[in-house]
């Protein structure tokens, strides 16, 4: 089927996955209300499973998008395989977040149906973010995602940390939205359109316009904030630390994936014509992010917070792929994003699992002997940590190898070498957790030790771990798909994807 967007109804088809998921989220809200007798009661498990089913249906609709072609690539909404790939990553992230929250919400006494509905709405925002070819759609998607997330971060109202994290995230998030919006206004003023496909042909003439360049710079800031690039990362450790852990997992994976997809669409594809203008400063930010985040992560005593810094460091690695600005870079980016989503969501899942009563045990010392007490989860956690460090035998290694290769292809040797050095630093803190898990005996008092992760959650973690390993041994299949997915980005008329060959 071919969509030409001549009729507005075509947008309904182009947005089918998002529409399905939005309706489903409302359904979840309704079911929750009618399922429970009064408002203080916890939600029934069926709500969580219903939400998961919604994600599955959306994934099916998303897969259906592959059969659709666009007549021209000028629509607000991209219907290409890049979007489909990103959508799948976002849906996987959301599904993992739901799976690890099942037992967690009950123990914390915050099992409310809104949680799942909000999570689904945030997912809709992320999916739109990966599809936006118009800056205004990008802004709306970003806000849809963020507003839902502000609530989710503060969902545990009784926990002062959760509320504080929400406040900081909210204030700084809307602060950065202000920059983004002002950037859009300036771009709109100088290019007379907010549609990327309309802006691209004008780039040669806009190159000299300070108004446009400042607008592009503010856009860069707004997106850099969402993907947590230093120094725009300041909100990240606090919000990640305060949020309920499933929400942290979603923010570290889905949000980052979607915002990075927008980054690629706007900068690597849309603004490729002014690559020289934005690449230098972004290279410096990537260097700062890789080294700064890894060095700070070394000093963290809380595993959850350490993982927050780790996710910042990974934003740096992904930026290296964006900066390569070639087809390999984009493919490496998609591949790494998939591995990253699996291993990061998995790692946060284990953070949930290690608990006493209803509380997570986040301190490094709390992991002493964990590997022996929970052989399965310990092994799974080790796989995730080693993969995050980029150890061979895990998908993280292949991902890094690909980013390195694309970076060398683009001639960014200094970024490639820095990436390797930065990940050498990261070995220290990832490995420290493994060492503590296996090589330090557990403290004597073991009462109340619980595993907050329910059976389905543990299964999901195990499947993710197996997938991370499989992505090392047989990555060819996913790499193939990733390559074909980015091929569609080239069809944007008037752009040249990257300056390399």
């Amino acid at each position, binding site marked *: 089927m071919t969509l030409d967007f001549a009729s507005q109804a075509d947008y309904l088809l182009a947005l089918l996955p998002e529409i399905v998921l939005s309706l489903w989220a409302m359904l979840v809200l309704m079911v929750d209300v009618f399922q429970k007798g009064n408002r203080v009661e916890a939600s029934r498990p069926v709500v969580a499973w219903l939400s998961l089913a919604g994600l599955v249906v959306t994934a099916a609709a998303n897969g259906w998008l592959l059969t659709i072609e666009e007549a021209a690539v000028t629509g607000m909404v991209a219907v290409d395989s890049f979007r489909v790939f990103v959508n799948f990553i976002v849906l996987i992230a959301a599904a993992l977040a739901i799976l690890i929250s099942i037992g967690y919400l009950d123990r914390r006494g915050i099992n409310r149906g809104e949680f799942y509905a909000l999570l689904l709405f945030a997912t809709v925002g992320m999916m739109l973010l990966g599809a936006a070819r118009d800056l205004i759609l990008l802004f709306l998607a970003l806000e849809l995602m963020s507003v839902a997330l502000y609530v989710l971060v503060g969902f545990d109202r009784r926990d002062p940390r959760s509320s504080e994290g929400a406040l900081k995230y909210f204030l700084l998030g809307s602060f950065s939205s202000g920059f983004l919006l002002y950037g859009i206004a300036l771009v709109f003023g100088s290019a007379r359109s907010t549609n990327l496909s309309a802006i691209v042909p004008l780039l040669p003439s806009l190159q000299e316009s300070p108004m446009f360049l400042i607008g592009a710079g503010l856009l860069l800031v707004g997106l850099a904030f969402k993907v947590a690039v230093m120094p725009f990362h300041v909100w990240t450790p606090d919000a990640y630390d305060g949020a309920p852990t499933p929400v942290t997992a979603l923010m570290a994976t889905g949000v980052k994936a979607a915002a990075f997809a927008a980054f690629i669409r706007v900068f690597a594809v849309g603004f490729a014509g002014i690559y020289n203008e934005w690449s230098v400063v972004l290279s410096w930010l990537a260097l700062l992010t890789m080294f700064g985040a890894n060095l700070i992560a070394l000093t963290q005593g809380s595993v959850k917070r350490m993982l927050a810094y780790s996710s910042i460091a990974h934003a740096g690695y992904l930026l290296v792929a964006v900066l390569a600005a070639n087809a390999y870079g984009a493919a490496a980016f998609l591949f790494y994003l998939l591995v990253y989503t699996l291993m990061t969501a998995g790692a946060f899942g284990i953070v949930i699992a290690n608990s006493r009563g209803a509380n997570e045990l986040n301190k490094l010392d709390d992991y002493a002997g964990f590997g022996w007490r929970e052989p399965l989860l310990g092994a799974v956690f080790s796989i995730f940590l080693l993969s995050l460090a980029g150890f061979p035998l895990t998908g993280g290694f292949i991902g890094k190898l690909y980013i390195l290769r694309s970076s060398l292809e683009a001639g960014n040797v200094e970024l490639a070498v820095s990436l390797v050095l930065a990940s*050498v630093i990261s070995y220290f803190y990832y490995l420290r957790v493994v060492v503590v898990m296996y090589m330090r005996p557990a403290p004597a008092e073991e009462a109340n030790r619980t595993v907050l992760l329910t059976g389905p959650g543990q299964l999901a973690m195990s499947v993710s771990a197996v997938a991370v390993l499989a992505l090392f*041994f*047989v990555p060819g299949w996913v790499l193939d798909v990733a390559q074909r997915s980015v091929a569609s980005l080239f069809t944007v008329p008037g752009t040249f994807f990257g300056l390399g060959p």
Partner: protein
Amino acid sequence: MILRVQQTAETVVAEAQAGAFEPILLGLIVLLPLIGFAINGVAAILAARTAERRRWSSSSHHGGSEGEADEYSNETHSVMDAEPTGVVPWTHRLPSLVAPGVMLLAFALAVANLFGMMGVELEEPIVRTYWSWIPVGELQVEAALQLDQLSLLMTLVVTGVGALIHLFSVGYMSHDPGYPRYMAYLNLFVFFMLVLVLGASFPVMFVGWEGVGLCSYLLIGFWFSEKANADAGKKAFIVNRIGDFGFLIAMLLIFVDLGALGYVEVFERAPQLDYAGPVVTAICLFLFLGAVGKSAQIPLYVWLPDAMAGPTPVSALIHAATMVTAGVYLVVRASTLFAMAPAASLLVALVGAVTALFAATIGLKQWDIKKVLAYSTISQLGFMFAAVGMGAYVAGVFHLMTHAFFKACLFLGSGAVIHALHEAMHATHSHADAQDMRNMGGLRRYLPITFATMAIATLAIAGVAPFAGFFSKDEIVGAAWIGSAGELPLSQASLFGVGGGTWMGMIAILLSIAAFLTAFYMGRLMLYTFFGPNRTGEAERQHLHEVGWTMSVPLIVLAVMSTIGGFFNVDSLVPIVNLFSPFAFGGDAALHNWLHPVIIGAEEVWASNTAAIPEVHHASWPILLAILVGVAGLVLAAVVLKPQLLGTPEETPAYEGNLEKVLYNKWYVDELYQRIVVRPVWGLSRAFYSVVDRGTIDGIIDGVLGRGAMLLGLSAGRVQTGQVNTYAFIIIVGVIVVLGSIVVM
């Protein structure tokens, strides 16, 4: 996932040329240890569950963490403790069968392949492709194995020595509560080692390279409750990261400059590079950095002595016979590249020779029997690097092989000694150090088999004819003398403005001194351990006895190999050595002929880039000198050292005089690294983190970072204050920088 079996063009060509020979179950050789790992791993998990349950139930009785400390203590305790109940659970019996079993099967398959390959003149390696591993763009990497003379030889060593050490471990470790886990790790190690040596491309080798490292850390930290052991594991891990960084960069450079990563393609295209040019030199230096990390050469050797914290059979297998020789294997494998980079090659030789001497000096004054052997291993690896650096690739591989025999024998022998001492001390609840030679003495009466086998291995390592080490070590030192006479291709190269011949003369002298010291410290080890009066203690002495058959059989086999291993490569052209020609296995210079197809690429490079060499002239005086230093070292030890005067650790100070103190403290290199590397990195990260609010200013000053880092810390450490205003301010600063840069660009 989809497994796609692809036959590349090269594979087909290789097979066509291979003629009649078909590798026999090549994949299965690699797979067998993995199967063993899976079975033992399941047993380990089940055993851990049981132990956990028992610990829970017992701790409820006498509520305590003390049980923990007893259960997994250091080597001195845990070998004997454990399993208070008389019944051996199946989780402990199964690995005894499975682990050595898979190794023996793998060895049998390797031998079958050897006989198959001996029948044909195999000129090209056989590549078996299993699936397409990384198939994107020009970077096509297959999951493929390569069988050629070198990889088969390495496979024989790994599976053969490995099988013996697995068998030894059955006796040595079966009482340990973590026995199934240990066997699982050991099997996994062999799997990765086989991937390393059999892989058909650099990335596949890298997988094995990292895998063996991982298993090494797991086994070093096996008795994890000892903090020192866990630290040693971490140290090994981190030092090896530096080496891996080199390997990775080298791989990327190879790919960028040659467009391939498979051995066959890379070595075919390597001669296209500029001879002695910067590119190939950089590749080789980075590869060598990887080798230095893995094979414990200066300056990255510091992890290996600490790695002795692991169980002794692990030291024998991983830290002496196989894994640490991977660096030598890497250089030989990439010999075509190294031949293209003569300066890098000379550097390899030089680093090897200096390491050989340096480590030997430290070995002189260690009291821990395993530490002596650890420094000895570093020193012997130095010999191998000196050989391959000088272009004497076969000599390096030859020494690698004989070293695997005699060093494994020595380590296992020391394991038997420790085991015996330990059992005796356990019986009397003594807490003396079972690894300190000052607690030994006169053990030949109590451990006759161990003594005999270790004595043979000592003669071999000292280079006494006709034991294995004599042939291999003399080939290396002989090559250095030949090179100094200008008769090796590398004699024409130069490094730092000094000619290759001069360098090789210095290398020959360094190696000769190192060989002398080797004989001396090994003589010292034997004297203090097996001669003189026994110092173990009156009560303990009653409990000293020889080890069981599972431990003595591997010792005897290895001693036999240490005796005859040298006859695999008797060169009739070399005077004195040719006296042994009648006993040579497989004809004249068998190993040379066998490995010739592997190093032919290097020879072709030399042939087209260096002036022709006049006929090599073998003199007899270097051989006589080599025999002399070996015997002299042993004799000097016997004359100078007085084991009958030695006392227990309480009575005998660790060192006397300044020189001894420096040697005992290993030239203070660990302390130096602590000061110039570890503390600054740690300090930098703390500086980045928080300074003011946490009151960690002292910590920073401790970090010896000085004012620069203080200022860096003050600015960067301020970042995460928790204050929204501060955060907003940081964002604004970022915005200004970004906008400024974009507009200026």
